[in-house]
């Protein structure tokens, strides 16, 4: 029952992300647009390009959706509102979200189209840039919580949220989460102006609808993960826990979408250079600083 509720909340969240994205992109707040656009996409033809790798082509959007949903399953919205309180939760979300790469590579390879292929390979490079910056900050979070249980991670932030305790880790994780969700400054795989939507280029109709839904869900999952790991999850005064979770997740989503509007798209080579020459030394420094802090002032 709980899992069904959480999946429905996730879908509602994906809808809100779509509304927010449109609002931030073109300044019009319209609540019906995502629903109408979704129905319209169901009504359009879903063309399969000639000579595709059919298995890859069909699997990619579904795998992306599964990856986003499974990632969200270990994140608590309130102390009880969590599908599976896995003992390895913080590790499981990494494992689930790695399949984003697999799905995008499949979507790139499958249709046998040049733009899609370039998008897919670009995302592989992007993974090499961002992956460490997802994993390393989470390690520092687990060090403070002494556990990989996501509920325990939230409880460990009762005195002081991790965004204050380890701001460096928060900054790195936030940027890396945007890169993982291929949001605008890092949308190398689906670059509209360069690649005619890249990995999405060959998808149309219902398959595109699934792809877009998966991407929106992914943004939601990552915003929820940021809230759980750094913003104290459900904790906060006056309001009930679920309200705090919801408000924080929406705020983080809006911040991610807004940040993307303010920057030009980064080149893949630059992204990797920044990730490895600046990001990873900073992430290691973060682990060391948190290590000292945890011993001195728990």
């Amino acid at each position: 029952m709980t899992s069904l509720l959480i999946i429905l909340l996730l879908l509602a969240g994906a809808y809100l992300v779509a509304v927010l994205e449109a609002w931030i992109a073109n300044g019009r707040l319209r609540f019906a647009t995502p629903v109408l656009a979704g129905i319209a996409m169901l009504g359009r033809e879903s063309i399969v390009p000639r000579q595709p790798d059919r298995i890859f082509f069909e699997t990619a959007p579904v795998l992306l959706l599964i990856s986003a949903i499974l990632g969200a399953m270990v994140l608590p919205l309130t102390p009880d509102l969590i599908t599976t309180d896995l003992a390895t939760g913080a590790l499981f979300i990494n494992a689930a979200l790695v399949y984003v790469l697999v799905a995008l590579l499949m979507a790139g390879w499958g249709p046998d189209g040049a733009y899609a292929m370039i998008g897919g390979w670009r995302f592989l490079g992007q993974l090499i840039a961002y992956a460490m910056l997802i994993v390393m900050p989470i390690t520092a979070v687990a060090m403070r919580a002494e556990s990989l249980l996501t509920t325990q991670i939230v409880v460990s932030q009762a005195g002081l949220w991790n965004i204050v305790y380890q701001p460096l880790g928060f900054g790195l994780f936030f940027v890396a989460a945007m890169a993982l969700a291929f949001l605008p400054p890092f949308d190398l795989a689906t670059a509209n102006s360069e690649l005619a939507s890249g990995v999405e280029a060959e998808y149309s109709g219902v398959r595109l609808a699934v792809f877009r839904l998966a991407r929106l869900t992914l943004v939601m999952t990552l915003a929820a993960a940021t809230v759980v790991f750094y913003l104290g999850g459900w904790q906060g005064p006056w309001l009930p826990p679920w309200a705090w979770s919801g408000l924080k997740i929406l705020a983080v989503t809006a911040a991610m979408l807004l940040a993307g509007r303010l920057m030009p798209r980064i080149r893949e080579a630059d992204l990797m250079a920044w990730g490895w020459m600046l990001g990873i030394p900073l992430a290691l420094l973060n682990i060391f600083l948190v290590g000292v802090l945890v011993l001195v002032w728990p």
Partner: protein
Amino acid sequence: MSSLQQYGLLLGITIGTVGFVLSLFALARTFGKARREPGKDVPATAGQLSRDPVWVRYHARYYGYALLFLAFDMEMAFMYPWAVVYKQVGLVALLDMGVFLAILFLGLLYGWSQGALRRQ
């Protein structure tokens, strides 16, 4: 819930997601089918088939990063159990992992100095 039940639930959610997508496909099917017309199924390259074949070997120009990435990714597998017991073990854990990470970081610096961190 035991952990086996938890993983069973996650498997069920995976299957449920596939079922949801299949039902969407079935719903879309009731609206109508794509008509087969010449030229419609050409991949998006300005309406023509691309000049060169697409499924060929690509040069992974970031292989320097990729090799370093492998080393760091393996290292992270050790970091997670270490992070969980870190506070219990205390200073010894910090020094142990500090030495390990320092050696790894020296590897990164060495790779950097040898020009691994650029597109080749």
